[in-house]
């Protein structure tokens, strides 16, 4: 799979170019994204008689998206004190959590679950990303935690609703601002026994609405054996309860995806450790946690699986997360809404915010 542009020399029978890596395979429910670039054949299977340059469209796409920038919305859910904000800071190597704006402030436990969204624009290699971290303080911290996932599912649905309204508008914007939650990182407490009831209830209610990526927080409290045992038990429990976490089996496109995702599914949930402090280890400066018996290196694969999580989330599956959210979760919501009111009526820009939805 090469990305280099084939030099424009006339060849009698060029080989069929390989499928371009960034392009979605044409699917019936994809209203967005590049259309029909799956192969180099013209309709009917005739071969090309010269080099046209269709594959340069990848480069054009790249340039455009780089200029436009990406949106990525990640939600972090879990009991307080599990290192959520630290992990997100470590993932994006910047102070992006809600604590960054109020450093050193007194920690107060909210009485109900609150939703706090903080946005930052981070840039790397010419690519700009508008990252929104949605924090949920108060989740699971009360004595009675019944229905504490309701504010969260309400928020997620509200974002879908916002997007739907924009889409249905007559004069709609070229690029609809995307505030939908693309990924929900769920932090599991490292008890070493099994999932807690609250974990199962939350994931049951939300796995059909949003992409859930479970992670085992503060995993430096478990030895390697305990970690493996715990992971196996957690995976089994999730299976028994019918909870499909991301990457979901049913959305694997083809064998290649399936193999790659299978490997990832076997290793999930990732046992992570987060840190924003650096220490000197073997002459290198590494992110880690220093204790009386050694330094836990965050990016060392023998110590924890942070590197795996980061690669998975950011380096390989970032776009896929957005696509699944858009193509599947959002469409499910949209279909439900359409069926509810017997159809949507487009609104003109002159109308007030009141809609016929």
């Amino acid at each position, binding site marked *: 799979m090469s990305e280099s542009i084939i030099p424009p020399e006339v060849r009698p029978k060029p080989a069929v170019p390989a499928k371009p890596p960034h392009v979605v395979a044409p699917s019936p429910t994809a209203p967005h994204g590049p259309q029909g670039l799956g192969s180099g054949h013209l309709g009917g299977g005739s071969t090309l008689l010269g080099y046209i340059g269709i594959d340069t469209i990848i480069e054009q796409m790249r340039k455009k998206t780089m200029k436009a920038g990406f949106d990525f919305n990640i939600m972090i859910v879990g009991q307080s004190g*599990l290192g959520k904000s630290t992990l997100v800071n470590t993932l994006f190597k910047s102070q992006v959590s809600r604590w960054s704006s109020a450093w050193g402030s007194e920690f107060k436990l909210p009485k109900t679950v609150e939703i706090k969204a903080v946005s930052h624009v981070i840039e790397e290699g010419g690519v700009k990303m508008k990252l929104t971290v949605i924090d949920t303080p108060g989740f699971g911290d*009360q004595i009675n935690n*019944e229905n504490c996932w309701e504010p969260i599912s309400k928020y997620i649905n509200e974002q879908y609703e916002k997007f739907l309204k924009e889409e249905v508008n007559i004069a709609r914007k070229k690029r609809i601002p995307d505030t939908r939650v693309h990924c929900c990182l769920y932090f599991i407490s490292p*008890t070493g026994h099994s999932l807690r*009831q609250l974990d199962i209830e939350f994931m049951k209610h939300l796995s059909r609405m949003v992409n859930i990526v479970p992670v085992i927080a503060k995993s430096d409290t478990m030895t390697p054996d305990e970690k493996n045992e715990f992971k196996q038990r957690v995976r089994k429990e999730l299976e028994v309860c019918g909870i499909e976490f991301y990457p979901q089996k049913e959305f694997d496109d083809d064998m290649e995806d399936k193999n790659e995702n299978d490997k990832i599914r076997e290793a999930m949930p990732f046992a992570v450790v987060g840190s924003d402090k650096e220490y000197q280890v073997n002459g290198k400066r590494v992110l880690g946690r220093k*204790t009386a*018996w050694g330094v836990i290196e965050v990016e060392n694969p023998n110590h924890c699986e942070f590197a795996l999580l980061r690669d998975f989330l950011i380096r390989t599956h970032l776009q896929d997360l957005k696509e699944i959210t858009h193509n599947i979760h959002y469409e499910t919501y949209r279909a439900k809404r359409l069926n509810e009111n017997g159809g949507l009526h487009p609104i003109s820009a002159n109308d007030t915010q009141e809609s016929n939805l």
Partner: protein
Amino acid sequence: MTTSIRYKSRIPVKTDETTEEKQYVGFATLPNQVHRKSVKKGFDFTLMVAGESGLGKSTLVNSLFLTDLYKDRKLLNAEERINQTVEIIKHTVDIEEKGVKLKLTIVDTPGFGDAVNNNECWRPITDYIEQQFEQYFRDESGLNRKNIQDNRVHCCLYFIPPFGHGLRPVDVEFMKALHEKVNVVPLIAKSDCLTPNEIKKLKDRVREEIDRFGIKVYQFPECDSDEDEEFKQLDKELKECCPFAVIGSNTVVEARGQRVRGRLYPWGIVEVENQSHCDFVKLRNMLIRSHMHDLKDVTCDVHYENYRAQCIQEMTSKLTQDNRMESPIPILPLATPDVETDRLIKMKDEELARMQEMLNKMQQQIHDGKEQ
């Protein structure tokens, strides 16, 4: 007078030893006698462990007493635990060391704090503690007091998760419900996931919150002024260390050339008995080596007496309400009378009534006889 002086001058002056012997009564050996008797009798100690599941309570108990109390435990998975309520499970083990016998009872509270709705999840625990007090009260007020079994809970180790930022609402509520019924010793569990700075911060926060919410945890008694400096220093360190940050381990690992109890991580080995790694040694010393007896004393003198006073007050207020005769010894209403005791009681009652009748008749006869 003079004779004695003369005698005194003739008799050789006795040495100090024998004069002391004359003044020496010998009750200084009492502690030794008590010691010998109690060693023969053996000691008992009831320890309760409470906290969410997965905080290492069983491992810590095993490490403290070097036993394996939880060999056949089956861990439930989350589905099975959905309808689980808080249970109370007792494990008893007899330990002997250097001729001293200890009957150790561990009261476990599985299911505490695990549900989605944990309202009043401490209720079964407070009920259990009060039941033990009630039982002891009954036995104490009963007729046969020779072999009273003391099942009262002497100490409750409460495990605070290290993952939070301090005490959570459920921690505060639990400790407040129990601090006047039992000696509560808060611990920070699984403290090997915290750096030394984090431990210090967490301890400060927990201490501050305990003060703020008015929770009366077990206080170490003040040192006597005649104790030696070393002891006083140790005691001070102990007090400053509260709540103890502990780690437990069931496995033995090789560290620094020795075999020690510890946990083996890819980045290092945590030794349970290393004072710079955790406060396990301090906890063990406090619990077993220095303050075990004090814990029992406080349970008997403070918590049990509070319960007893409360109980008697309730009963007397009920009795005066019913306008019945005040009995010298407060008698508790029987909780669940079983058939056998019921029958016996009936028999005895009838006997008493008959005797009373006979007495009356005799009195009457005497009275009549006098008149005649």
